[in-house]
């Protein structure tokens, strides 16, 4: 049945990760190198080799994800392992470094790795948190064709506003033509549109309608109702877009940083061998 990547297969990948970490920490504790612990000892090479292998394996996830209908394991196996083993790198690679940092390509590789893991950690947080919020925001039904829904409401607004004074009609027209959904990355991430023409129209129609009476007042009340529904829908759509953006945005850091990390790692390894 349904289970998240954290608890998947009864924490199989957490258990594997903890075993690797326990072994690495134990080895580090009992290892007594000449001088300070560093990457050049037998343990340093072992931990370095392990870290490099892990990085390459973790990066391979991008390829595995796109190889459909192959392999014995589920993609969720890979994802669960990706999360736990990825986080474990923070410890394994740090042990490999022997806590020696400096302004050099080695520390650059380390820093890039930390950034990749950091962006991944945000991704994990996003994956755990936002799908639920998104689902709650959507309610029981799928939002469906939101454009058709919004357009339908705009048509209703026009219909009602035809019999109302021009000042109202102009607002309704603006609400139809100037209302935007989506937009820049920031707009999407914020989940709001402070300049939303529909919201503005709602407020102003309400203010104007206070003075109306008779049939105009009736029509204005109906208009406010439709506009309020439209604004509510727009708010939900924008929230939906926000959650989707939050679910996606971290990948725009995670992936390029991974590519940079692979480059830095390659240089790190080559230069280390030049010391020999």
């Amino acid at each position, binding site marked *: *049945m*349904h*289970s*998240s*990547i954290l608890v*998947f297969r009864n924490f199989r990948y957490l258990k594997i990760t903890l075993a690797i970490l326990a072994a690495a920490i134990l080895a580090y504790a009992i290892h007594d190198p000449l001088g300070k612990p560093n990457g050049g000892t037998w343990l340093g090479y072992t931990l370095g080799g392990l870290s490099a292998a892990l990085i390459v394996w973790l990066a391979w996830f991008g390829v595995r*994800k*796109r*190889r*459909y*209908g*192959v*392999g*014995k394991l*589920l*993609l*969720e196996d*890979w*994802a669960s392992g990706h999360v736990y083993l990825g986080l474990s790198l923070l410890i394994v690679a740090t042990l490999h470094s022997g806590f020696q940092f400096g302004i050099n390509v080695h520390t650059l590789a380390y820093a890039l790795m930390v950034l990749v893991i950091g962006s991944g950690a945000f991704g994990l947080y*996003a*994956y755990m948190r*936002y*799908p*639920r919020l*998104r*689902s709650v925001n*959507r309610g*029981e*039904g*799928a939002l469906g064709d939101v454009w058709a829904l919004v357009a339908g409401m705009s048509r209703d607004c026009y219909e009602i506003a035809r019999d109302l004074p021009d000042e109202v009609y102009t607002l309704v027209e603006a609400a139809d033509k100037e209302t935007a959904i989506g937009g820049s990355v920031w707009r999407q991430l914020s989940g709001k549109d402070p300049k939303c023409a529909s919201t503005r129209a709602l407020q102003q129609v309400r203010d104007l309608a206070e003075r109306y009476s008779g049939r105009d007042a009736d029509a204005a009340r109906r208009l406010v109702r439709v506009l309020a529904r439209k604004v509510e829908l727009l708010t939900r759509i924008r929230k939906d877009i926000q959650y*989707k953006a939050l*679910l996606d945005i971290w990948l725009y850091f995670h992936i390029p940083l991974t590519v940079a990390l692979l480059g830095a790692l390659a240089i790190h390894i080559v230069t280390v061998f030049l010391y020999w």
Partner: protein
Amino acid sequence: MAEHYQVAIVGSGPCGMSAGGRASEQNMSHVVLERTDHLSDTIYKYQKGKHVMATPDILPLRSSMAFDAGTREAILGKWDEQTDKLGVNVRYNAEVTEISGEKGSFTLTLKNGETFTAEHVVLGIGLQGNLRKLACPGGDWEGVQYQLDDPDEYEGENIVVIGAGDAAIENAVALAKNNNVYIINRRDEFARAKDGNRNLIEAAIENGDITCYHSADPASVSPGKLTLTVPDGEAEVECDRIIARLGAVAPRKFVESCGIEFPSKDPASLPELSPQYESNVPGLYIVGALAGFPLIKQAMNQGYEVIEFIRGNDIKPADEPLLEEMFKALPGGRSVDEVITHIRENVPLLRSLTPLQLREFLLDATIHVPNANDVIFERNDYTNSFFMIVEGSANIHIDENDPSIKVTVGVGDFFGEIGLIAGRRRSATVNAAEPSFLLESPRRSMIKLINSVEAVERAMNEVALVRQLRTYLLPSLTDEAIQPVLETAEVRAFKSGKVLFKEGDADDGVYLIRKGSVTVSRRIGGKDIVIAYVPAGHYVGEMAFLTRARRNATVRAAINTETIWLESESFRQMVDASPELRSEVERRLLTRVIESESMHTRPEAGNIIQFLVEQGVGEATDILLIDETLCVACDNCEKACAETHGGVSRLNREAGPTYARIHVPTSCRHCEHPHCMADCPPDAIHRAVDGEVYIDESCIGCGNCERNCPYGVIQLSSGAPKKPGLFSWMMFGSGPGPGENKVWNKANKKEDGSPKVAVKCDMCLNVPGGSACVRACPTGAAIRVSPEDFFSLSELSARG
């Protein structure tokens, strides 16, 4: 003096025309009498460009004329040409109104009074009969037509379609694309039409594409206007054209007037014929649809054969070599006729079939000659074919835990009916008890047989009842123990949503579900809360029976359901007589009590069952469910589907309803009794051993399955455009990368009108590892599951 011929052929359809061709080839003096001014009126009336099939594929064509699948125009053109070339003597506008006389000197009278005499008569008039005409005043207006060649011919017109059958609906829906269409239905619903067409027309009316007058009758027609009698008076409809599809007067009356007898009054019954197609009137032969063979190829073969029979040449039917090949597997080198006679003698179920029907039935069947102990099928296989024992015997192992409990069935018996009825996995393993000769018949042939021959259904039900009782209650029940229950047991069917019994009702017996599924609900806090889902193979109603109390829950059919109703008193006798059964019933009851108490505190879980049942999950065998709290909307499921199925995804993740964070995407549920299979002309839809319902490559793209599927999971697709290889994508960025088919497909849509075929989820039948969508979900949001598993207490309590 009337013209005299050796043979007069009435009707120029595929059979009559083929008979004429053969007669001409053999220099027999002949005449083909055609009512209209063209050949083969039934096919002539097909819609323009209709693709005509040449089924059954395996049957060879034996005719002087050619026939291959193709468009209506190509086929008719070819026939016209060949009729000419062979010099077939066709008389057009020659409607025969009377046939009298006897072998050697029949007299045929035409409508215009002309007469012919003939030694033999071949009747190939089909079943279409004469079209009913609009009878109201003004019905002869030139704007009234009785057929529609090409719906695209009309644009921007007001068109009235009269009728409520399939033809009327198909015309109305096709015309509504470019015209303002009204449909006039004499009744208040479209009950006569096929399910798919009914859905189509109801949707079109609901969307406002077509205006419908229900319970309306045409009162009069004047040019440009139709007046209707409607329940509240009269209504007038302005129209440019009226298309009346009022069906036809069946030709039975005419056939009977020729002296031909029908076996029953049933309007569907057909005259009895000799193997040479000769009727009870010697010298008068019947071929084609009227003889029970509605397919073009069969009819053409019969036309050829009937001429040979008349010439005294007792040729074997065209399917002889096929049956010969089939029977080769049998020991003893028997002839086809011998085997067929043997089957008729040994299998009572097939005795009521005519020799011709039996041959057709056998062509669809498979012969098995297992040795002792060979397995025929295994418990939990998802096959739904049906087996008959012609020779030998078989052991049915009904108890999963004890292989020594078996029922032996012998010559003339059958097995496999439980799976056929329930549409579920096999409930027992069957193996051959000795070297045997078995006949395996596919689901479709069996359903056709059950529907057309009442005796088959009755015989099957009787045997099935005993087996179902054993299988579902207790395998070790003795015949004596079952006997009292059997006497009162009856099969009761419930439509989807109907109540089997209500909370508070008095106990009236136990219901064993043999097909479909039910929900159990109780009133809690003034609301009906579903507390359980019970699929086929289980029973309900035992609680009131055991506790001698009133019903404490309401049971409703989740889908169309069939139950075996067992009267309380006799059921009590049976239970009292068998301590083993008593404890079995008690054990199930206690499980039910625990479940229901637990569900009491979790109304939300009950609501999930209710929601999913409303989505039709009750008839699913395997359904894709997405947990929205885990789904990150990456669409990797859709991408995986497209990548493993030629670039076209068969699932739509986002579409579909959601309840309590469970999303039901648009994807096949592999129904117990698949709606898509109901009306597939080439029989291209099958169920694999593990339950996957799939479409094979014989699909002709007719779209019936797409229309019949209530869940909208079948699409017609002409395949994805070719995409550049992985290398050119990586090096030069041409085309889409892995999983990026959607945008590419849209941008590179095939515009050449390449033929479309139906595509649907096949649960990755041929992909090792199973469903690619589920396997490609990185977060575990997508699962495929059977409703029973999903509705289990442990699963629901985790959500409730």
